[in-house]
């Protein structure tokens, strides 16, 4: 009774927010089917040319590059974030748990821009990484790390690692440790307990973290433009270059809508996988 009442009382504000969001999307959509008039910001009449332009090889390659970089970043962030999340939750020492938590959330106190500048200093020809590699004798000339896909991925991993780690920590903290104790009591070693009990039960959290990091990186703008130096462009950068900076708002609306559809498709697929896994474990 109370839940129904609470649901109904939140329906109106939720509906208003949804209506505002839908209105904004409709406005963007109507821009995407309007013609650009050179020298004016006022769009012209109806046209599908903006969507036809998407066939240019550049846009396909940028989309694929963006998808690939987002997926790669999400996988790397998962591999680094899972151990951090696990020990943030399961370490016996309260001090250690707090320390890991602090290390994870500290980067969030700085925005994307200062952190991206820091990576420019780290990865540059005269930066800290090249300096260290030279000092230990591994290289005699600087290695190009800035303005490369690898450099941008490294920076994106750093920026989105806290999100994955915190989501995983929440998921792992909800796993009843009795299951793990039961497995150990039946003779499973720690690795087997992890692989057969902990990891499967944390799959929903893994998928949630993957979706979140993927979506965050898909809309990344500052990091690729700074660490990528205009040479490694993700879809948001192209929206800016070919839309905003070129005063072509109709085309930028088109690119933005297609990007939204792509992210929704990925989120939908991952959500579907998550539901199937959840059903399987419920059985």
């Amino acid at each position, binding site marked *: 009774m109370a839940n129904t009442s609470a649901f109904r009382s939140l329906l109106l504000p939720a509906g208003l927010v949804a209506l505002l969001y839908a209105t904004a999307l409709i406005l963007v959509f109507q821009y995407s089917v309007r013609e650009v008039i050179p020298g004016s910001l006022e769009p012209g009449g109806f046209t599908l040319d903006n969507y036809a332009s998407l066939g240019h090889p550049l846009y396909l390659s940028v989309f694929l590059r963006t998808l690939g970089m987002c997926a790669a970043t999400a996988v790397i962030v998962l591999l680094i974030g899972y151990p951090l999340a696990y020990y943030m939750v399961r370490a016996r020492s309260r001090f250690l748990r707090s320390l890991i938590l602090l290390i994870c959330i500290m980067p969030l106190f700085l925005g994307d821009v200062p952190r991206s500048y820091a990576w420019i200093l780290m990865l540059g020809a005269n930066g800290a990484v090249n300096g260290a590699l030279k000092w230990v004798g591994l290289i005699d000339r600087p290695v190009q790390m800035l303005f490369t896909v690898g450099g941008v991925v490294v920076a994106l991993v750093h920026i989105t690692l806290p999100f994955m780690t915190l989501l995983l920590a929440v998921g792992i903290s909800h796993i009843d440790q009795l299951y793990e104790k039961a497995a150990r009591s039946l003779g499973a070693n720690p690795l087997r307990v992890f692989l057969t009990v902990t990891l499967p039960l944390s799959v929903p959290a893994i998928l949630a973290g993957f979706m979140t990091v993927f979506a965050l990186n898909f809309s990344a703008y500052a990091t690729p433009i700074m660490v990528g*130096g*205009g040479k490694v462009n993700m879809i948001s950068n*192209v929206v800016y270059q070919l839309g905003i900076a070129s005063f072509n708002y109709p085309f930028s609306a088109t690119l933005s809508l297609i990007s939204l559809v792509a992210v929704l498709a990925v989120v939908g697929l991952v959500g579907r996988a998550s539901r199937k896994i959840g059903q399987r474990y419920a059985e």
Partner: protein
Amino acid sequence: MRKFVTAVLASMLMSGAALAQEKLVVNGWGGPFQALVMATVAKKFTKETGVPVEIVTGGTIDRLNRARVVKDNPESDVTFTTSHVGWLYVNDGLFEKLDFSKIPNAKNLIPKAKASDYHLGFYGYIYSIAYRTDLVPPGVTFASWQELWKPELKGMIGLADFDASHIIKVATLLDGKPLEDWEAAQPKLMALKPNLKAFYSNSATSIQLMSSGETPVQVLLSSNAYNMMAQGVPLKLAVPKEGAILGLDTIAITKGTKKLELAYKFVNAALDPQVQAEVSKMQKASPVVVGVAVDPDIAKLPGIFSSAEQWDKDALVSNDKVRAEMLGKWNAWFAKNMMN
């Protein structure tokens, strides 16, 4: 007691109304620009008229978009913007056509500083080649724009990602073609691609890439070069024999302002020779009127035009109307072919 409270409330309302009527609202950039205008033009204007000035700030395109939204009830009386973006304002009917009889100081305006009958130059600057003297090959001095294409500069050059008009202007100039015939200069532009290392999206990134040595050669904004030189970066700003690309920040009167006469006084104050001398010194920029006593330390900086003759000889001027109309196409071509 009631009478006292009523009197206080009435005086508050009246003073609020009075302030709202008397204030001149100027639309411009924030930060150093805001400080510049308040210390120079606004100071003179308020001294002459007794009317205070308020500056509303924002990015160039953001302010244009806002101006379009509030077109029928403008929020500002005077607008500062760049010369080519000013044409977007003009095309959208956002500027008043100027009555030059109300701007006496405009008679001293350098011809190249008049952007249109709707917007006038406030100060000039250049986009030209800056280079790290400690990092470029010996003998490279950029006496000509053609030197950007030298093979020994492979992977050394940084360009802006938000305005392809500068390098397109240079390519057409070197090919002996008019700007409108830019497509014929595309092979020339593509030949530059191997020398390009990175693209900067704003002044901060430009400065970072240059000062760290990642892009020891850049086509950049003169004020950024001056700031780096003042910070001790071993940098030179070249003015090639063909000239440097002129940039112009402009002033205009917002169409529909209810304070038209005051707006004209403000524009006139901006073109006052004394104000122009102060602007030139503070901004390290070229004054736009003749008869200005430019600070000697500023005058000797490369790219500062102290006389009309220098404007004619050293300033490469693009047709801003063409630039506003073509920038979208140029930037799109540049992004597709040079950056990706």
